[in-house]
């Protein structure tokens, strides 16, 4: 049996599932197969109001990776915010730079806090090396401006997600854009001093620790720092893709 036949069988199992357990199993199997043809079905599974199936579908889409991005951008559901949040999560997990505009728009303007949360997270997991080298800095500044704004969102979880992304961005630009990086550390300190939410403040402390550890490493490993800048790409940090 080739991949295409297998995909058809697994897709049919998802379409014919008549209970939430069967749906979950079918989506898990389809996701685990990692076949490109399954992308539209996996995206549809994000809208079935079955969180287990949605998690499996997101994992499957992330595993399929870049080839799933155009469909995700195209099929994103404007009318079902729960499905939209899962789709944004998949885009964030893939980290594909083509999702930039969708993520920026969603993080700043979506009415659903779970969509804003997932998008805020995604802005910190973008793979900068996909961008043309001459565009990296301007895009990073654009993302930074957005994150500074989003880190003032009225919902704690969106601010929390923005802090995680400010952390990764601060580390990514520590060497290339030190002035911009200090805007991030200033904003983190401001949140720590003023945020009403203990969970958000705690996440800021953790971010500050991570950023300091990074600076420490750079002080004690100047050679590696040079090598990194010569590559003119910011290495993608694998952490937090899910």
């Amino acid at each position, binding site marked *: 049996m080739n991949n295409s036949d297998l995909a058809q069988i697994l897709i049919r199992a998802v379409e014919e599932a008549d209970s939430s357990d069967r749906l979950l199993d079918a989506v898990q199997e389809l996701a685990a197969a990692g076949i490109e043809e399954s992308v539209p079905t996996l995206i549809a599974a994000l809208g079935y109001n079955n969180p287990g199936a949605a998690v499996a579908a997101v994992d499957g889409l992330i595993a399929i990776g870049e080839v799933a991005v155009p469909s995700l951008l195209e099929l994103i559901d404007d009318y079902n915010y729960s499905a939209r949040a899962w789709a944004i999560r998949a885009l964030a997990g893939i980290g594909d730079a083509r999702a930039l505009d969708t993520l920026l728009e969603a993080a700043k303007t979506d009415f659903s806090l*779970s969509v804003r949360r997932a998008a805020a*997270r995604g802005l910190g997991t973008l793979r900068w090396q996909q961008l043309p080298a001459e565009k990296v800095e301007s895009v990073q500044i654009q993302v930074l401006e957005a994150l500074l704004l989003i880190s003032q969102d009225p919902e704690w979880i969106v601010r929390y997600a923005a802090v995680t992304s400010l952390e990764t961005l601060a580390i990514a630009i520590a060497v290339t854009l030190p002035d911009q990086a200090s805007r991030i550390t200033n904003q983190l300190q401001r949140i720590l001093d003023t945020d009403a939410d203990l*969970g958000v403040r705690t996440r800021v402390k953790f971010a500050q620790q991570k950023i300091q550890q990074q600076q420490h490493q750079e002080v004690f490993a100047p050679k590696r720092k040079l090598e990194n800048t010569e590559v003119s790409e910011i290495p993608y940090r694998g952490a937090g893709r899910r």
Partner: protein
Amino acid sequence: MNPSPEKTEDLSLTGNNAEGGSLTVEQALANLESADLGLRFYAAWWLGRFRINESAAVTALIKALEDEADRTPEGGYPLRRNAARALGKLGDRQAVSPLIGCLDCSDFYVREAAAQSLEMLGDPVCIPALIELLQVGLQGEQLISQPDLSQPYEAILETLGALRATECIPLVKPFLEHPIELVQYAAARAMYQLTQEPVYGERLIKALAGDKLQLRRAVLADLGAIGYLPAADAIAETLAENSLKLISLKGLLEYQVKHTATSTLSDGAIKVINLMDSLL
């Protein structure tokens, strides 16, 4: 305790002009006296939702606890329910005594809302009245033989646990066997808060593997409320919406931070943060 995430999550009305949300405080207070019962009902909700804890709002809502105009065909009091819910959110202890009075109301949902709001207000003066209500379901220290559904036991148990009413441990414990699973979980949650014995936290973890999404959602809220750190992985893995898992884990995280003497992050806190990050 177990609202659908559709309702909790995204009626957040972060825009100023979300549909119907653009009342002013003055309008809301005026609407509480409106001839239109729908407007009254909405105004009571609105004052709570937007945390309008001005004394005029508190006074008006306390008055609404005695409303007789708004009745359901079954004899319920919709405005009283909303007023009782709102008063919990406003955090003004003037409401404690009137809410205790509501525990005698003929409407189950008014009693439930009052018990929940008394938890939020956190004043132990309500404990005897809650115990009295709990005892409706008990014969001595056992459940009465017919399963009793007449009282909002879930809310009562949660409040007694949150208020650390250790004197009522023998009265809470029998509810671990109540036929309604949500009541069992509320009892486990309260027993953990009252005794700190892991066996009750473990019972909740076990419930996260249950079949029904609604119940898993409820247990997520319970575990978050008691800050039970050993549940962290089970919370992250249960089949439920990430939003609810994140709220639950935040409960664990904040409990860790509040109960750690030093200002550095504990290993437990870091573990929870990493799980939360993975769910964003």
